[in-house]
């Protein structure tokens, strides 16, 4: 009788093992790896978004300076021409 009880318990153990550990599911460690990967992707997406914003701001700044440079060069040329005409 005790032998049959022992066999049943061993059977339960095997059944539980087959349903959990030995099933076709990723382990906790593998799930952690997947979650880390997801977090890394999210973080990279945010960094890219920030960099895009920074790039746009720099492009605007450069365009403004280009316009100022053009104006400055025109003013300078006009002034030089007028000064030459005076002398």
């Amino acid at each position: 009788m005790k032998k049959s009880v022992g066999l049943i318990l061993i059977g339960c153990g095997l059944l539980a093992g087959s349903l959990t550990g030995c099933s076709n599911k990723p382990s906790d460690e593998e799930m952690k790896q997947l979650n880390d990967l997801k977090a890394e992707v999210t973080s990279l997406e945010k960094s890219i978004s920030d960099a895009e914003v920074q790039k746009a701001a720099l492009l605007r700044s450069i365009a403004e300076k280009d316009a100022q440079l053009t104006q400055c060069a025109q003013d300078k040329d006009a002034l030089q021409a007028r000064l030459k005409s005076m002398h």
Partner: protein
Amino acid sequence: MNMIKKIIIAALVLTIATSVLSAQQQELTKEQWQQQVTELTAKRNDLKNTYNGLQKEVADLKNKDAEKSAALKQCQDDFAALQGQQEAPFKALSGNIDAKLNELSRLSNQDLYARRAELDSIQTWINAERQNPLSSIKSNEEKLNELQARLDALKKSLEQVIASGQAVQTYKVGTWAKDRDCLWNIAKKPKIYDNAFLWPKIWEGNRDQIKNPDIIHKGQILKIPQKADLTKTEKTALRRYWAKKNSAATAPAAKP
């Protein structure tokens, strides 16, 4: 025996519960997990490449921005040096115009009318400044435009003052002993008409307070009409005055 049955049932329940809980925690299959890991790894690598590329672009743009700043500063310095050659006289004159406009804009209507000739002088200054090479500089051009706008506003006020009749100049009569004030002498004053023969204008303009042009009193405030040739009425009044004078043969003709 019962005890053994209970143990077996408990073991079975525990086993099934563990399995169910375990199955709930891990919904993915191993294949799905593998697929997600593969996809995410590829995506991460793409994003890393994109990010690295962007960082390089941002670094390049920062350098370019710094170069533009330096070039702009250089241009502005060169420009300032050129400006410095002629800027002081330009600023001095535009400052004078500025001050004169401020002064005129604070005047009463009558005072503004009295000093209306100064508006023409300011216009001449502004026109002369526009010939200055520095007037082509944007900031100087803007300054001149601002001065011109203020002058135009003053001219417009003056026109309104003249149109409304508020522009009549006045003169406070002094004493004969001290000021030698009579209509003849008042008209002769440079600030009035600079022409003594225009005295009948003052008489006609002040008929309400001057009955006899030979008699004016200290402290009287006389209105001085605008300088112009004598009108028909004024000439008539003048003729009558002399006729009356000539008929009064007893006393020598006095100046009005």
